[in-house]
């Protein structure tokens, strides 16, 4: 027994399906050797945590974060995942990985040792490298601070619940969640968050508001209406107010946190917490395809090498490859299983293709990718791509005709005025560039999500908040959900709200939504 455990036959890292901590450590070390020395990956220190399926469901429910404040929506998510899982409609992910330092990978106890190996290569090295190196993560998220910040958030929310009541807190969180997708800064750098600073700053903000509390301000007398004559003056003054308020502002949560006239300190802090969490996930949303592609590519490379060197048995290799194949399966559009383009499949295919272009380029590749074709450094090229692109720019830069042919991509145009869809471009000479830029646009979050900004607020009058949706190609907002979100918004703003949908090119108002003042 102990002989085989210490030195598996023929230099294998492990034998059999059962895993233990020793085998995991051995596999990790062998993978690390390949990942760092041969693929040149650069990773955060790894922390691997073994969990049960129930804990995996818990992790799902709290959007994959190890700590989270309490909210019914997480309970709802848990209930749904639980129901799907119990009825066998959906398997659980083999792993969840958290962008933190150390990088925490959760692996399930049900996995076989072959799967654990795959998962470690995938999460602890693939995702980990991507988190540490991609510019969006470097710029936007603070891997060292996130766990501390979540601790702060959880404690703050539960303290608020004690002081203000669960209902009141829930109401604010509901509203903030509804605006979460529009609670990110897309362009500026936000300050790093850490627990001690956050706590100190929360305290400072509270003290400041106490010190500067001015009862008169609360019941300020409306200003005398301007005379008709100085309309220009008025317009100028309003422009100045807009400038001072930083309008237009696309981060709705940020604006509410800073400017909402009747929110209390703790409410602002709650909005801020939701905003920070939204911001934390923003890079993940923008790089999902690349991130999964990177992890899949890394596990594929590593497992092949482990197998070539006789470190894992044929059985383990085949088991891992079976799972790999399932993951990168892309159903066609007319397949019952089709649900959009599989990010694993596209990411993996593109990265395999980049490797091929670097080592065995064709004439076509030399024409399309002169700067990388045949450069003989596939891993360096990929590392550069992983570090400096997001899904949208990655597709725009690297989607090759060969991959388009492999996926047999085609583009369909859907105009509401026409009674049929029109095939606009297919995978041929004339269509490649069109397909590529169209697909890239789909990965652009700024386009996938409606472009909504706070345009104006009438501070001297009824404090009505005016939002503007710049509708591209005449695509309006979903009526029902828009109405519900505006209700939430008015809960925080407390005054009337107007949302105008205007055509992005002509500025013509297409539709308006209004909510009366909330009392």
């Amino acid at each position, binding site marked *: 027994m102990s002989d085989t455990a210490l030195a598996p036959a023929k230099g294998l890292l492990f034998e059999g399906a059962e895993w233990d901590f020793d085998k995991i*450590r051995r596999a990790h070390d062998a993978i690390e050797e390949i990942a760092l020395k041969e693929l040149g990956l650069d990773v955060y*220190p790894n*922390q*691997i945590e*073994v*969990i*049960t399926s129930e*804990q995996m*469901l818990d992790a799902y*429910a*709290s959007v994959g974060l190890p700590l989270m404040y309490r909210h*019914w*929506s*997480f*309970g*709802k998510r*848990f209930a*749904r995942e*639980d*129901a799907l899982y119990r009825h066998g409609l959906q398997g659980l992910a083999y792993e969840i990985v958290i962008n933190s330092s150390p990088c925490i990978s959760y692996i399930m*106890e049900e996995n076989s040792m072959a799967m654990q190996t795959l998962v470690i290569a995938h999460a602890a090295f693939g995702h980990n490298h991507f988190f540490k190196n991609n510019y969006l993560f470097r710029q936007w998220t603070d891997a060292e601070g996130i766990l501390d910040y979540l601790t702060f958030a959880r404690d703050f929310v539960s303290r608020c619940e004690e002081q203000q009541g*669960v209902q009141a807190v829930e109401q604010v969180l*509901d509203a903030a*969640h*509804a*605006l979460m*997708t529009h609670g990110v800064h897309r362009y500026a750098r936000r300050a790093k968050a850490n627990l001690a600073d956050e706590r100190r700053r929360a305290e400072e903000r509270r003290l400041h508001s106490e010190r500067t509390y001015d009862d008169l301000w609360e019941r300020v007398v409306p200003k005398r209406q301007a005379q008709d004559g100085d309309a220009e003056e008025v317009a100028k003054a309003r422009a100045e107010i807009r400038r001072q308020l930083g309008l237009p502002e696309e981060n709705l949560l940020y604006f509410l946190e800073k400017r909402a006239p009747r929110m209390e300190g703790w409410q602002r802090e709650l909005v801020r917490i939701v905003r920070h969490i939204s911001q934390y996930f923003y890079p993940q949303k923008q790089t*999902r395809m690349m991130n999964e592609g990177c992890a899949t590519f890394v596990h594929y490379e590593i497992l092949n090498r482990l197998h070539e060197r006789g470190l894992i048995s044929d059985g383990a290799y085949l088991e891992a490859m079976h799972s790999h194949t399932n993951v990168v399966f*892309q159903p*066609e*559009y007319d397949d019952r299983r*089709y649900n959009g*383009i599989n990010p694993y499949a596209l990411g993996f295919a593109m990265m395999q293709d980049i490797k091929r272009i670097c080592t065995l380029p064709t004439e076509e590749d030399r024409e399309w990718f002169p700067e990388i074709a045949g450069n003989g450094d596939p891993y360096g090229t990929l590392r550069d791509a992983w570090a400096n692109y997001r*899904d949208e720019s990655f597709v725009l830069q690297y989607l090759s005709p060969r991959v388009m042919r492999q996926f*047999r*991509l*085609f*583009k369909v*145009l*859907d*105009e509401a005025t026409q*009674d*049929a*869809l*029109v*095939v606009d471009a*297919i995978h*041929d000479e004339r269509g490649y560039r069109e397909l590529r830029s169209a697909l890239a646009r789909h990965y652009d979050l700024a386009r*996938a*999500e409606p472009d*909504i900004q706070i345009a104006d607020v009438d501070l001297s009058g009824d404090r009505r908040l005016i939002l503007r949706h710049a*509708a591209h*190609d005449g*695509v*309006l*907002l*979903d009526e029902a*959900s828009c109405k*519900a*979100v505006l209700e939430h918004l008015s809960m925080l703003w407390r005054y009337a709200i107007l949302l105008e949908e205007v055509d992005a090119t002509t500025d013509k108002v297409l539709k308006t939504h209004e909510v009366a003042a909330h009392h």
Partner: protein
Amino acid sequence: MNVIDRRPNPKGKSLPNRQRFLERAKHEIKDAMTEALKRRKVGQNGSGEKVSIPSHRISEPVLRKASQGGKRDYVVPGNKEFVVGDRIKRPQGGGEGSGGKASPEDGGEQDSFEFVLTREEFLNLFFDDLELPDLVKTKINDQDSMQLVRAGYSVAGSPSALSVKRTLRNSFARRISLSRPTPREIAALEMQVKTALEADDAEAAEQSQLALEAALRKSRRVPYIDPVDVRYNRFERIPKPNTQAVMFCLMDVSGSMTEQMKDLAKRFFMLLHVFLTRRYKHVDIVFIRHTSSAQEVDEDTFFHSRETGGTIVSTALDEMMRVVRARYNPDNWNIYAAQASDGDNYTEDSDRCASLMAQQILPVSQYFAYIEVGAEATLRHGYPSAPTDLWRTYEGIAQAHQNFAMRKVADPSQIFPVFHELFSKQRERAA
């Protein structure tokens, strides 16, 4: 690298979130449950209950683009025959849409939300707004209803209530304040004596010896634990009002009851049983079944034994009153009764039933519920046949007495609504 085994971590991390979710969706879940209950069997144990609720109260709206209208394009894999310029009929429901959408969260919300309730959650919700009406007669019992409540510490008590922590704390304080030498100090003095003796320093040895003896004397005088240190946990007996209630379950098992009717009756009583045992710790349940004669039986016999015969309803009422007189003094007990029958009775017995009810049972009962189980066939098509003897008899009683309610049940799916009606908190007493 670090491998951590998180499996032993406490379970149910998202339980509070789940409770909040259930609380929020309570109303919808109850509606859904009433639907689901129609398909459910009584006493179905183990697995949870799958419910599906409309999602508007628990929706999480976000600002998103409409799924239709305007000009849009999709990039889709798997082209087989299309060339540029081909026209495709617009698919219904936009099934083909969302070509390259970035995340699945963008997808719309489902119209209904399906999940599984555990049996515990299910029963809690089901019995949530039910109660025994008019549970008023409270009697403070001498024995059972005294409750022990912690009330600080006392200097006297039984050894089993000794508070070791408090006692040692007092002892420690006393030892410090009276400067009792510690064992270490004594050991040090002994060492001094020994070294002095070894060094042949008689004077020093004597001094040390004196100091040692003084220390030993002191440590004898100041005991380690003194009776003044001892503290006991103190408990106070708080009288707790104890509501006593008894539920009489009267079931007709006579030959006129078909198997299906008996099944309905049993289902009703099972539900009642589960309700009472879950919600009221101190409710006695008395099972009485009757044919042409009545007897008190135990739970198992009541639900499971098969026996048939003629029908004399009044025997059950007599038996109930006998038990009341023997064991449940109406001054001290809240008395409830539920009766299930197919309504058949010897015609000459009905008057006796009515007088028993009006003069003996209802005056001492808080609430009497009668359900009449009917054959499915008679009720399914059009109106039920003429009211039964018992129904007619009881109708008169129901009009005269507020604490009497009667319902008809013809189908398993009606049991739950009827049960709810009979025991809901806002029960209309006038009905």
